[in-house]
């Protein structure tokens, strides 16, 4: 499995997940277009392109809110974890919807003139100092460019090439795009329409997304407090029997690293909690066939030296452990990835 990129496999769950997202999008657009046409007053005429512009824009915005809610939901309850797995497909799909919205808008509103539509878009309105007249289109363009970059780099290939933590930092850009889009919607269609439903629903969605993030950060911190090392530098993580067999306990050090301390075959070993593949939480995995197995895509590491079994060559950091007076201690300084360490042997007799 070495450093080249290994695509994550498809499976039935993922297919069903994507099918539901696709169906949801079609449902939204169909209901919106259908009811817009059905609620037309006598004498009014409609422009189908303008209805589609609204339908796709609204669908993309709604989907982005859903996507951003999944992360905190999964942190709040493990039940929602399966939702994490196709988030990236949703992101790419969201970008496609936004692109359709932008393409139709550009073609319809800025096409048909002697000017290039893109030039026309930016030249048409330059009232950046006005709220009533603000060229909200430019906010949408900025968000679209960000979403495009995220969509292109969402492939596992880029995650492998950039390294999981750089990749993750880049993908935090989705929050910038979200902020831009909230303003795009507020200064655009919400300013135009009279019904309170529009500002209320945009602000409502924003509050849900922000609230979930705050709530999950709050509850997350309670269960995952940073643990101080004692004076001699070791962290006490309690008696060995508090760790389930073939499972781990995760500790967060003062320098904000997470360590997975595993118990297996009467021994204790500690490794970094971060999987070398895509930063999966190894401490939520378990030992299978003598190897720590990542819960995300099943990469494996030997607990004693943090190395993947041959022929693979992945390495993660290991940590020193010891048992003293019936307590397990782990040293918070990581050893270089792949460094063999001596597992601490649980002395059953001493434990009694």
């Amino acid at each position: 499995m070495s450093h080249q990129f290994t695509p994550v496999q498809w499976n039935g769950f993922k297919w069903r997940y994507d099918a539901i997202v696709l169906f949801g999008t079609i449902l939204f657009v169909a209901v919106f277009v259908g009811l817009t046409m059905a609620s037309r007053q006598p004498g009014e005429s409609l422009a189908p392109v303008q209805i589609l512009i609204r339908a796709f824009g609204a669908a993309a915005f709604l989907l982005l809110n859903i996507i951003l809610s999944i992360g905190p939901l999964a942190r709040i309850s493990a039940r929602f974890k399966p939702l994490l797995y196709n988030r990236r497909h949703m992101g790419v799909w969201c970008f496609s919807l936004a692109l359709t919205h932008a393409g139709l808008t550009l073609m319809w509103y800025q096409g048909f003139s002697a000017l290039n539509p893109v030039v026309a878009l930016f030249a048409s309105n330059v009232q950046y100092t006005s709220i009533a007249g603000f060229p909200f289109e430019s906010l949408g363009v900025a968000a679209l460019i960000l979403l495009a970059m995220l969509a292109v780099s969402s492939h596992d290939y880029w995650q492998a090439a950039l390294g999981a933590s750089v990749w993750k930092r880049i993908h935090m850009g989705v929050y910038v795009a979200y902020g831009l889009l909230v303003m795009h919607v507020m200064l655009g269609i919400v300013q135009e329409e009279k019904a309170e439903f529009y500002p209320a629903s945009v602000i409502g969605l924003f509050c849900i997304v922000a609230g979930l993030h705050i709530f999950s950060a709050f509850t997350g911190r309670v269960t995952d407090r940073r643990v101080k090392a004692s004076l001699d530098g070791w962290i006490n993580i309690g008696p060995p029997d508090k760790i389930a067999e073939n499972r781990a306990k995760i500790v967060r050090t003062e320098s904000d690293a997470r360590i997975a301390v595993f118990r297996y075959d009467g021994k204790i070993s500690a490794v970094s909690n971060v999987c070398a593949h895509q930063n999966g939480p190894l401490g939520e995995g378990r030992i299978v066939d003598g190897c720590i197995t990542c819960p995300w895509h099943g990469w494996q590491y030997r607990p004693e030296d943090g190395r993947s079994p041959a022929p693979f060559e992945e390495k993660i950091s290991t940590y020193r452990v010891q048992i003293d007076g019936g307590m397990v201690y782990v040293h918070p300084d990581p050893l270089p990835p792949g460094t063999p360490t001596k597992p601490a042997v649980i002395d059953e007799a001493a434990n009694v």
Partner: protein
Amino acid sequence: MSKTPKKDEFFVGYNAKLSSADRRAMILTAGIGLVGVALGGAKAAVHQQGWGSGDWDMGEVRDIEGIVEQTPYPVLRTAALDGQMRSVSLVCSSKCGASAILAPYEGKPVWVRGTVISRGRHRLLAVVDNQDWLGDAKNAVAAPPVEEEYLGLAALNGEILDAKCWAGAMRPGSGKTHKACASLCIRMGGTPWFVAKDKAGKRAIFVLTGPEGEPLREEVLAMVGEPVRASGKLMRRDDLVQFRVDPAVIQAV
């Protein structure tokens, strides 16, 4: 390492098999999500404002004869059955203006070919600018002098819009999301109209001009498509009423 998925509940990531509790949670989530999505789409659809009664029948190309008049934007004056003169605004089919091509025909009887854009009593002809659309009139055309009448001073609230978009090229052809479009149309030679609305929501349409009835374009671009207030003179020319304002006194509201 082995790539074969293990049949084990914790392998959420790459194993298709969810625990039955997880599966129930996912089905419930998907169900709630889909109902929410459908409700959201329905609500977003029904709360929209009206789309206006503008219409553009692009299928029916007609030839109309009349007198070309460009004070300040191109119109074709035609005699209605009752003998009254009607003004049909002449606009491009795309986003441009017809003034330059019409200039040599000022005051002359012509035939013009185009498609009709209409909203309420307002008529525009979008000339088919990709083919021959203009020539000397083949029939005798009535040409009474323009009837002009000063109607007084007015201070009005409303929106500056492109005549063609508002009257049917765009539905809706007003409001914030349409602002950039209206501004492009007017910049490229479209006719600016002032769509005034009083407190009761009653609407009146005026041709927007400078203080002496001269054309306005670049001067009003910044104000297009937003709620504004302006004061000036109302001047009737045949069946069109001009709102003559100094662009400097147009204010955002």
